[in-house]
Structures are given as C-alpha cells and as structure tokens.
C-alpha cells in the first residue's frame, strides 16, 4: 500500500472497500448501497425515478439532458417524474457523518497493543492490570499529577498523531485529578480513581479526534470544522482564494475545534438521546437539527415547491434571447452559442437539483459551482474558447452522434481538405508529366482514369478501395480518422468533378 504513488491523492477518497479490513466487512454493502451509481459518491439530494431507481438529483438530471433512458434499467424516463427522497438523504447524511468514527472503531488493529481494542474485548483484565500498575506509582499521582499526566497521555496517544488530542486529554485529566487530589477522603484509593478516569478517558478518545464535527465544504468538498468553514473558509472558497488542499493545512484547520468536540460530546451524553443531533448541531451551525429531527419534525419543509427552472428549447431561441435569459439569472453572457447553451443547461441542472436537497445552498454557491464546472468542461477550455472553439467542440463529438453536422465538419477541416486536394493534384500533374514523357500519345486516358487519385502524396488509406472496406466494417463507431479521410476524399472527388 505504501508503495502506491497515488496515496497522496487517494487519502481523502472514500469507497466501500474501506470496510474490507474491518471487523464488519459487510458494511461495504451498506456503504455501496448509499452511493449514487453515477458519481459513486454518497447520495446528494437523492431522487427516485419512475422505474424505482435512485440517483443523485444532479447526476441523473445531467444524464437526462442528452438521454431519455434510465442508466440502470434503460426504461424510458422523464425528468418531470423524478421524486426527491427525503428520508434517504437524511439516512445518508447521518451515515456519512458517523462513518469515519465507525471505521476507526472497527479497524482491525495490526499491532494489537492498542488500548482501544484491549479495553473493548477484555476490559476486566486490563483494569486489573492498570490497578496494579497504578498502585505502585500512586504517590506520584498525588504529588506530581502534572508530570504523571504528561507521561500518561503520551503513552495513551502514542498511536495517534494528532497533537491536540494530547492537550485536550491532559486538560481533561488535570481537571479530574485535581479534584481527586483536593478531596482528602479520596486519597486513600487513588488507584481506583485512576481507573475511572481511564474508562471515561477511553470514551473521550473515541469522541474527540475532531472527526465527527468535521463538515464538508459545499464548494470544494474539503473536510474541516464547522467553525472554520463558517468563519473563514467559505468566503475564501467562493472567492477562489483556496488553492491547495495539502495535509498540513487540513491539520491546522482542525486545531481550533477540539474543545468544541469535547463540548459536543458531553452535551450529547447529557442532553440528547439522539446520537447524531449534537453532531449536526455542530456541523450545520445555522441548522441545529438532527437528521431524525428534520425528518420527523420539519415536515412543512418536505413539500416540494414547484418553482423549478424550465428546459429551454434552444432550436427556437435566438442568441440574443438566450443571452437575455442568462442575464435574467445573472449568469455570464459571454462565450460562443454552444457555451451559452451548455451554461444554461448546467445552471438548470444545478438549480433544480438544489431544490431536491433537504438542505439547499445559496444561489451564490450554485453560481460558483457553475463556474467550476465550466473550468473543468472541455468546451470551456481556454484553447477552445478562442478561434478554434468550433473545432474543439466538433472533434469531441462522435461522428455517429445525432447532432453531428457534416457542414460544420467540412468548414472546420476545409483547409486540410484543400491541402490534400492540392497535393493530390500536384502529384497527378507530376505523374501526367512523367507519363507524357514515356508515352506522349495516350494523354487522355490518364485524365479519365480514376486510379490517378491514388497518388502517394495522399495518405494511402484514402484510396477509394480502402475507404469502402473500412466503411463496411466500422459498425457503430468508425474512427474519426476514417471519417476525415472519407470526407476528404469525397470532397477531392467532388471538386474534381467541377473542375
């Protein structure tokens, strides 16, 4: 594993195989069931199709722009029939928020001298061992608690690389131990006290690591504390100021939150019987509701208001009208016609899928997502945004595609076709000259002979014979090359007819 050169970028990739080496490998099944077939991520705003299949709203809507079949069962599917699945979205959100903790807890330890495991499985014997170990040093506990705590916390956290865990633990313990040492009646049994600390300490360990209160930025999908996200990150991210997502940065981001983690842990234990409510109160901030609260209590939010954007019929829309439409949504209106159409469609998908979410994001974030989509989409690449835009798009289209325009193709490759014709003519002329030298009287035959268009200057594959044979075998996907040659030579012959 350590030899994998992709470890750095795979470190934040989660997938069902994460469960393979845990105590409950079958969780991989649950994990994969909660993922969209299209993007393989956990469902975001899941919707149910008329054929009873579930996809992310955004994924299936993007797919349905150019298709009308269910990607899974291929039955006909209309966008209007998609229904949002409120319960599933909350289940997935709940699962994905507890997933890191579950993974941590169920990890099969390779070096099993880890406290966590032993405690869970044979807590009795470990406690005894601790008692004897501690009773030998119990004077130390009383007289120099600080010293002991540092050692202790080092021991305890040796398997964790998270520094703030150490700090927090020692804070926590210091508090408890200082109360114990200040109350004289407890001095007689410091060892027992110590064990108590340890067991509570153990629970704390599971809850602290600042993991369950990490939230995902809706824009860049980086995980961080809710505090960090709200105070700083979201603005930076919207303005595109976040450039790298290196590990140290993420660690730093965790730093401000360990106390919040502890606080939420105790709050959860004391006040709320619902395991996840305090998690989401931390992570969602503005929305202090647990997943179950949302599902059972916020019922008025479950009714879908039908204010979705409508699909545009681009064929009957002039470019100025299309620009007006875009401007009405405060979207950029620069770019080629093709880009304008793609931009509207993508905004339409983002907008409508956002409405399917239980926790919709603001329009500002949608526009940012649109911008990022454009950056990653080939039709908006810098090289295709200039003079070669039409070329960039047409060469990406399959020649078997419905919207393939022969005329556009001819326009784009006109120069190359001309060049082919020119070289062909030149070689014909040359050949003719040579033949003239050899057999002057047979000039006319050369002119009418079709094989004169088989000169070496033109690519040998473009001979009429070979075009015929490639055509006959290339089935659904003739390669672009074949087509280009085909077009080129047909044009060559056409122009020959006219001259």
């Amino acid at each position, binding site marked *: 594993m350590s030899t994998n050169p*992709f470890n750095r970028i795979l470190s934040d*990739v989660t997938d069902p*195989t994460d469960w*393979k080496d845990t105590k409950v490998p079958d969780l991989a099944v649950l994990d994969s069931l909660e993922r969209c*077939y299209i*993007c393989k*991520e956990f469902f975001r705003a899941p919707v149910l199709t008329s054929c009873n299949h579930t996809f992310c709203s955004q994924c299936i809507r993007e797919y349905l722009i*150019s298709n009308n079949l269910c990607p899974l069962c*291929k039955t006909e599917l209309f966008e209007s029939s998609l229904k949002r699945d409120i319960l599933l979205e909350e289940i997935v959100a709940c699962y994905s928020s507890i997933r890191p903790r579950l993974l941590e807890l169920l990890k099969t330890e390779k070096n099993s001298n880890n406290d966590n495991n032993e405690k869970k499985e044979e807590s009795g014997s470990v406690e005894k061992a601790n008692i004897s170990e501690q009773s030998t040093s119990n004077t130390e506990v009383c007289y120099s608690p600080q010293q002991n705590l540092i050692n202790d916390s080092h021991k305890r956290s040796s398997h964790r690389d998270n520094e703030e865990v150490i700090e927090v633990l020692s804070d926590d313990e210091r508090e408890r131990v200082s109360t114990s040492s200040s109350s004289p009646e407890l001095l007689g049994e410091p060892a027992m006290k110590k064990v108590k600390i340890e067991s509570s300490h153990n629970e704390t360990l599971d809850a602290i690591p600042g993991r369950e209160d990490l939230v995902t930025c809706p824009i860049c999908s980086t995980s961080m504390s809710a505090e960090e996200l709200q105070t700083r990150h979201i603005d930076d991210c919207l303005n595109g100021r976040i*450039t790298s997502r290196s590990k140290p940065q993420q660690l730093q981001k965790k730093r401000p939150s360990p106390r919040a983690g502890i606080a939420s842990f105790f709050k959860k234990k004391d006040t709320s019987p619902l395991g996840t409510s305090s998690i989401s109160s931390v992570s969602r901030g503005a929305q202090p509701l647990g997943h179950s609260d949302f599902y059972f209590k916020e019922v008025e939010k479950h009714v879908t208001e039908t204010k979705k954007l409508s699909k545009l019929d681009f064929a009957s829309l002039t470019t100025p009208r299309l620009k007006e439409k875009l401007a009405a949504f405060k979207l950029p209106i620069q770019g080629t016609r093709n880009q304008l159409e793609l931009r509207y469609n993508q905004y339409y998908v983002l907008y409508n899928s956002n409405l399917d979410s239980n926790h919709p994001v603001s329009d500002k974030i949608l526009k940012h997502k649109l911008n990022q989509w454009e950056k990653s989409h080939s039709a908006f690449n810098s090289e295709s945004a200039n003079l070669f835009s039409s070329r960039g798009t047409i060469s990406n289209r399959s020649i078997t595609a419905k919207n393939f325009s022969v005329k556009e193709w001819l326009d784009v490759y006109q120069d190359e076709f001309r060049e082919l014709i020119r070289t062909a003519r030149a070689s014909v002329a040359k050949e003719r000259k040579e033949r003239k030298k050899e057999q002057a009287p047979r000039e006319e035959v050369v002119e009418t002979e079709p094989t004169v268009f088989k000169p070496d200057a033109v690519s040998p594959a473009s001979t009429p014979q070979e075009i015929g044979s490639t055509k006959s075998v290339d089935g659904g996907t003739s390669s672009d090359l074949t087509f280009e040659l085909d077009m080129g030579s047909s044009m060559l012959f056409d122009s020959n007819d006219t001259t």
Partner: protein
Amino acid sequence: MAPRSTAQKRLLKEYQQLARDPPPGIVAGPLSEDDLFNWECLLEGPTETPYENGVFPASLKFPKDYPLSPPSLKFDPPLLHPNIYADGTVCISILHPPGEDPNQYERPEERWSPVQSIEKILLSVMSMLAEPNPESGANIDACKLWRDNRAEYDKQIRKHVRESLGL
C-alpha cells in the same frame, strides 16, 4: 489545485477500488496523478484461448464528461482480433454511447451508461478476447481468418503472444 470535477472524483474512486480489490488478470491505473483522464492497463489473456499467457497493454482515455460519455480503449501494440481495429482500438458495445445504432445490432442495454465502470469494461474486453463477436467485426481480415482458418488465426496470435513476451 482546483477542486476535482465529478469525473476526476469518480475516476479516483474507481482507481482506489481497482487497486484494493483487483479483478483477476486486470491491472489498471492513471498514468500520473496530474492527469486522471489517461490510464494504462494490463490485461491477461484468458485461459484456454490462443491469448493465454499473454499480457496485453492497453490505454484508456476518458472524456471530460465521464461517466456521462464512455472512455475509449486501445491496445498498444495492436492485437489481432475480429473486434479490434487495426490500430488497436477496441470496438465493443459497452464502449458505445447509447443513442441510435446505425446497424441496429446492439441492444441499448449493452451500451455504455454511467452505471457501467472501468472494471466492467475491462471484464467485457476479457470475455471479448475469449469469444469474438464476428457480427460486428472491426478488423475484417481478422474476422475472415477467425471464420475461415481458425488454426492459422490461433497460430498468429500465439506467435504475437510469444513475441510480446520476448520469447
């Protein structure tokens, strides 16, 4: 680094899954972590076929709108097979986008859909190696050879396998 696109995220996930739980006879991964859209894979020739014992390198190229559009797969060096073009490009229904099919011999459920995966593509290619589909031939010479002179077809492939192994 800009946030990853849907395509990049999905490619990473598929890679992780393939790396952790590789199907037998298949190795695949991106050429570099900067460009997740170009993959290289190695396919083992299926047993009890003339391709047996061969290890065939191929390149997978993904479009920017993957998984909405399918990738393309090309054997490099090209492989003699009725469904592989002379330049090595594989012609197989799972790599064809849905939509109209000029020849009407591929059912839509065999075509590409975003629910397919790299693993499924490579497994389909393995079974294509074992069982060529002469109805939708890509390499007419290989088709003829396979149909009319199986012994010679097998011989040529075994020779290619030996040569590719440097024997």
